[in-house]
């Protein structure tokens, strides 16, 4: 049981139904969902394709309004706008092709009217942290998919969000790069003390990175289990060789197998 003070973001009875549109009936995407995420926690979410994971994340971000129920961030109900203190890294390539790496990373800061010296300092730090130092004046088209995603992560980091929402950020990357990016993410999480919510298809990724992993049902997405990983805070990708890691991913797959089958049949 977590005290109210320790809860960073919560969902209370949240459902999301997309209204009928262009000849398609309404889509019951999500819920009802109740969720409490602790301050400073790394929370992973796995689920079958189309189960409403992205809708869940966009509800947490304030990008999608629940049809019923409430999303609460730092004790306040989220309204029509994305609250201050939330940063989102999307699954899609969201690096702006008309801006250099430097300008992409500083985009949110410039809007927040942070003074230019501070912008430069934070952008430099984020670029170095993400290993993009040699590419600061490059355009996204000159970078690999992984580097572009790092630009997006850096753009989120510089605003110093207290809650970082990640929607399958490594989806387009190969396995080795995913592991390394996962390590960078863990380093970032430890350094910033932010709360992180990671939506992913990858059971290994969720098991390696998270303090807790929530397993979602096929549509409409609900939580069918939330598993504690009990990993130490200073973990890295080598945790995959721990005996407990295999047991955890095996348990996740057992929970997900039938739901994935249902999702496949529905498709």
């Amino acid at each position, binding site marked *: 049981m977590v005290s109210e003070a320790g809860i960073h973001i919560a969902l209370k009875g949240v459902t999301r139904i997309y209204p009928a549109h262009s000849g398609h009936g309404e889509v019951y995407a999500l819920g009802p969902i109740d969720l409490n995420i602790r301050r400073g926690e790394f929370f992973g979410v796995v689920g079958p394709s189309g189960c409403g994971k992205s809708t869940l994340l966009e509800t947490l971000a304030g*990008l999608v309004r629940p049809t019923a129920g409430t999303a609460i961030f730092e004790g306040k109900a989220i309204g029509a706008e*994305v609250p201050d203190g939330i*940063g*989102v890294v*999307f699954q899609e390539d969201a690096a*702006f*092709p*008309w801006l250099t790496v430097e300008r992409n990373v500083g985009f949110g800061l410039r*809007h927040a009217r942070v003074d230019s010296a501070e912008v430069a300092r934070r952008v430099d730090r984020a670029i170095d942290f993400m290993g993009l130092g040699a590419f600061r004046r490059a355009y996204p*088209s000159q970078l690999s998919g992984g580097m572009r995603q790092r630009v997006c992560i850096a753009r989120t980091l510089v605003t110093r969000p207290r809650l970082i929402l990640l929607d399958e950020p490594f989806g387009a990357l190969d396995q080795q790069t995913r592991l390394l990016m996962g390590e960078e993410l863990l380093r970032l999480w430890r350094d910033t003390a932010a709360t992180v919510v990671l939506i992913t298809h990858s059971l290994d990724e969720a098991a390696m990175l998270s303090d807790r992993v929530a397993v979602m049902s096929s549509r409409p997405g609900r939580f069918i289990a939330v598993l504690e990983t009990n990993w130490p805070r200073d973990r890295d990708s080598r945790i995959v060789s721990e005996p407990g890691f295999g047991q955890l991913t095996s348990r996740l797959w057992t929970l997900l197998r039938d739901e994935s089958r249902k999702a496949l049949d529905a498709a």
Partner: protein
Amino acid sequence: MTKPVIWRLAIVAGAVLAIELACRTGIIDRVTMVPPSQMAVALVKMAVGAPWFWPDALSTFQNIVAATAMSIVPGFLIGLIVHAMPRLRAVLNPVFLSYYSVPTFVFYPLLIVVFGINSVSLIVMGAMFGIVAMVSATLASIDRIPRVYVKVARVTGLSPWQTAVQIQLPAATPHLITGIKLAVTYSVIGVIAGEFIIATSGLGRRLKLAYNDFDTATMYGLILLIFIAVAIVNIMLQHWESRVHRRWYRT
């Protein structure tokens, strides 16, 4: 210089040479067309000696610039607004699609009644020609903007206006350039043709006077000038388009 550019120049040079020969050998009679070399000489003579040349040329180009601006800026804004209102778009779509099947010049007399025989009528005429091309290009461009950019804008806390200027405008640029090119072309047609019908100054009016006087050399000299001006603007736009595409899509 790339091979396609060399071929393009060779084709233009070949066509000019063919017309020159056809005119010089009498295949095309001099009343119908003068040789391109004579067009160039007539243009230089006008530029150096005709007192009306520079004021009229300036008037036409000013009107074209104003009409282009009035096509591009309101066209983009209207496109943004219509895009944000899907029901309005559904209503207006048939209008946009059939707009160019209506001869816009039927409204020129009305513009003259409202604004008089002056630059305003010509600018509005030119803008009426170009604006729908820009609106259509804006709608198509915004359709192609990845939705994730707008989500980033919302997370960043941008207002709708900031989103339009800082996200949608630059994100739509590669596709908007097509609309800008069309807006320039249509504005040139609108202004020159308007001057040709009725105006107190401008190259279109001078064209009509030369045509009425059977002054073929002056007429073709002016046509050559318009060709050169439009070609320069098109080359500049092409260059800009190539630069944007290189920056966005380089692999």
